[in-house]
């Protein structure tokens, strides 16, 4: 089974709206990472939040982490058509070293 699971599986919004997606994981972690995958392309690293951080920002992205609930959220503000992609959370479970385990992704469609 996947370490991380994203919710919802798919999301459709209008340009300019905010998009929020959530990730739940099972085991203790050192950090949680979010990646974006455009159709037919590789994954692009967006942001890494460490286990002792609660919130992190990068441009229009805001990530929160709640280790007590083993969950994270990714908020994309003022979405653009170019934000259309799949978004994955990934965690390196403690004692798993460098091994990143990915969730199944949230497919986001931003309509112009």
């Amino acid at each position, binding site marked *: 089974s*996947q370490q991380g699971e994203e919710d919802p599986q798919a999301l459709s919004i209008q340009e300019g709206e905010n998009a929020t997606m959530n990730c739940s994981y099972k085991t203790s972690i*050192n*950090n949680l*990472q979010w*990646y974006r*995958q455009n159709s*037919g*392309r*590789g*994954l*692009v*690293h967006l942001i*890494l939040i*460490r286990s002792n951080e609660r919130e992190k920002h990068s441009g229009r992205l805001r990530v929160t982490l709640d280790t007590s609930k083993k969950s994270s959220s990714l908020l994309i503000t003022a979405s653009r058509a170019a934000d259309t992609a*799949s978004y*994955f959370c990934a965690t*390196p479970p403690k004692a798993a*070293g*460098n*091994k*990143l*385990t*990915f969730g*199944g*992704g949230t497919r986001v469609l931003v309509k112009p």
Partner: protein
Amino acid sequence: DTAVSQTPKYLVTQMGNDKSIKCEQNLGHDTMYWYKQDSKKFLKIMFSYNNKELIINETVPNRFSPKSPDKAHLNLHINSLELGDSAVYFCASSLFGENYGYTFGSGTRLTVV
């Protein structure tokens, strides 16, 4: 300048054939990975090498054999290809350690017919 480059981008081959996928990174990273993404977009790690040494070897059929001639290259050889091997294979690299993100290649779409 491509950071992580994989070749070929597309590979169509018949069942039973043997094929290789190559990966190279110019980021100075010391750790490289192979991931498999299935048709439902689930990504699963297959192998990881750190400084040419195998450090992660998930439950993968032994028809799959990785080779790392140096820390900038990680190749994947697949023997006796099966229909179920059809997927997108991604190479990635990172620095070794728990708080580093990965840089991914653009993937190799393998179709076995």
